[in-house]
């Protein structure tokens, strides 16, 4: 179990972590961050893999994820390390999670016979379960993580998490699925199809009859057939789910909380941090993307009043009037940026109360979206400023200042 008192730097995450979970709300740059961490780890000589969930198209292309394959594939080092600076042994792989085939693999593994697996895989209730049940994607992400971890081909597995409606579904997803598989009403019915109405108790009969009336007997037959086929596999699934959750709690697992500094994202991040704490885990690093730059140290209020008084300045002549308007607009603009930087910083502080000693890194608003290795390297230089290969150029307005 993670000891919340142990402080891990971002360097530690990529150098010593064996699993890094990137979590946060949608649209804050989780996938990009996950890719950056994997690249940095590979540069430091480790065998790293990034498991993405739903990458934006161009990033997927950059990572060579054009074809859906549920296994990691290695990326040519010439692409992520063009200057050949990596520590020897460093390898970078990537994969895109395929929820359905991960689930299929699981069924095949735990079925007693190939026939049982086949029956389940062909059942339409199962197909919906594998593709449409909310929480399945989260669970399968964790399942894939467990599988890669057990195979031991990687030193660091970086996992992107699905944009959940309810933050941190991935911690609860295994339980949720197990609860569904444990459904008592249908477990009572593990008797040959069509006879269920005769065998089941009167109350259950009524109940199922009503459901059939609403969604049709075919659907109910499918459900019953699924539960029948699944019989005997619950125990395997339960143990497996238990082990998946254990990976999250081992000491080499790092939680990286990703957020933007906007109020709504920060509110979610706070909720995440609290939820991670509820599971006796701890946030190891906080990464704040899309931070507005702060220029200088002057407070916005002073700048704003300077802009206002300049605007009121009495001048004569066209040239002086133009100069006054320009200067006043410049002050108003600087006040705008420093005001939003101050506010963003204040928002982040409310998360830091929850993340304790976890280090926080700021990634400024970048001029372009991050969808190739060059851009990933740029973010890498911001997140890991001590890299030996740093070329010395400052990213525009790095971070919100002190």
């Amino acid at each position, binding site marked *: 179990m993670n000891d919340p008192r142990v402080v891990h730097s971002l360097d530690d995450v990529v150098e010593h972590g064996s699993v890094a979970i990137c979590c946060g*709300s*949608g*649209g804050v740059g989780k996938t990009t961050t996950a890719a950056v961490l994997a690249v940095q780890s590979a540069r430091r000589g480790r065998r790293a893999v990034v498991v993405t969930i*739903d990458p*934006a*198209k*161009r990033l997927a292309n950059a990572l060579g994820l054009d074809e859906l394959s549920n296994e990691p594939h290695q990326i040519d080092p010439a692409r992520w390390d063009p200057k050949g600076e990596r520590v020897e042994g460093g390898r970078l792989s990537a994969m895109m999670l395929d929820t359905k085939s991960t689930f299929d693999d699981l069924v095949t593994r735990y079925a007693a016979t190939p026939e049982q697996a086949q029956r389940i895989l062909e059942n339409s*209730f199962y197909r*919906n*379960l594998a593709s*449409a*049940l909310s929480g399945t994607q989260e669970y399968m992400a964790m399942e894939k993580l467990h599988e890669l971890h057990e195979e031991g081909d990687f030193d660091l597995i970086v996992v992107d998490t699905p*944009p959940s*409606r309810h933050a941190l579904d991935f911690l609860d997803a295994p339980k949720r699925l197990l*609860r*569904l598989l444990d*459904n*008592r*009403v249908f477990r009572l019915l593990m008797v040959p199809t069509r006879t269920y109405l005769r065998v089941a108790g009167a109350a259950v009969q009524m*109940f199922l009859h*009503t*459901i059939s*009336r*609403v*969604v*049709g007997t075919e*659907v109910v037959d*499918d*459900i019953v057939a699924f539960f029948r086929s699944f019989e005997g596999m619950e125990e395997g699934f339960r143990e497996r789910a238990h082990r998946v959750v254990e990976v999250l709690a081992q000491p080499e697992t790092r939680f990286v909380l990703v957020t*933007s500094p*906007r*109020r*709504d994202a920060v*509110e979610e991040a706070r909720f995440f941090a609290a939820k991670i704490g509820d599971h006796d885990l701890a946030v190891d690093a906080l990464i704040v993307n899309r931070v507005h*730059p702060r*220029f*200088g140290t*002057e407070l916005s209020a002073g700048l704003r009043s300077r802009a206002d008084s*300049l605007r009121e*300045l009495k*001048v004569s002549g066209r*040239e*002086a009037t133009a100069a006054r*308007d*320009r*200067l006043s*607009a*410049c002050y108003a*603009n*600087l006040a*705008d*940026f420093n005001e*939003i930087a101050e506010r963003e910083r204040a928002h982040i502080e409310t998360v830091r109360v929850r993340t304790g000693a976890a280090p926080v890194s700021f990634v400024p*608003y970048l*001029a*372009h*979206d991050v*969808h190739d290795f060059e851009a990933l390297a740029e973010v890498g230089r911001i997140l890991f400023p001590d890299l030996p290969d740093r070329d010395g150029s400052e990213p*525009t*307005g790095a971070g919100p200042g002190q």
Partner: protein
Amino acid sequence: MELDRFCSTSRVIIVAGKGGVGKTTVTATLAVAAARTGMSVLIVEVEGKSGLASAFDRPPLGYEETELAPGVRGRTLTPDDALLDWLRGNGLRRISNRLVASGTLDVVATAVPGLKDILVLGKVKSLDLTRAADLVVVDAPAAGHAVTFLTSARGLLDAVRVGPVNKQASDVVELLSDPERCRVLLVTLPEETPVNELVDTAYAIEDRAGVALGPVVVNGCYEKLALDGAGVTAASVLRDADLLDVFVSEREAEDLARAAGFRAERAAIQTHQADRLARLLPLPQIRLPFLFTADLGYQEIGHLADALTEGVAAL
């Protein structure tokens, strides 16, 4: 176009876009702008999130309608709410509690994917039929889910051919495919990935859901400065200061110039992305400004409603 005409083109407006683009902000803005023209507006929040109410400086919404602002009411309508509501409406009140308590509801909803979506939209339909408000604004699920949300009904029509589910699905299809009753307002940011995803979403919604699309709202646009930011240098700032006989330190001149340059650079990128969107997607755009000065609250929504009104007028 006049705002009241814009807001009465259809009685239901579904606001959709990917996470983080300001969908909820636009929902609130549209509602306030419409209410100003004298319409009664009902906001329907389908994900049970708290963001919407805080835009009105109010505590989180519940299943019961509450007044959020003059002329604007709000309520949640989560899939679970809608399902229970529907069961009760179909004489199944007695089993609804049992369905929930036994976990069978999850099993059934899994067996019939899209069931929850059509129940939410079905409820929206009945809000429309009972004229619960002059305008119903729905804050839709995030982009990927939005497509599923809007296409479920067609899928279900094929999957469940008879019975109450089929009836519900066909009612929903009817609502969605009638532009006088319903249209979708897409929201994006003037940035590369959000623009790309919006284009995909727009075509998917139009092709597969058959819903009419309204203008695209481009949120978070930097407003133009009263100067050419790209031309500002520390030296030019110091020259202006000299001319006006005011003191500006060299360091401050440096900061002022960098800030002006940054704004100009971002604004140029935004314009480029918005123009690119216009080329990729032949829909009119309404641009809403980025708010530097405060977190979103009722006052800020008011500013955005002004901008929306102007944007609509320019259509």
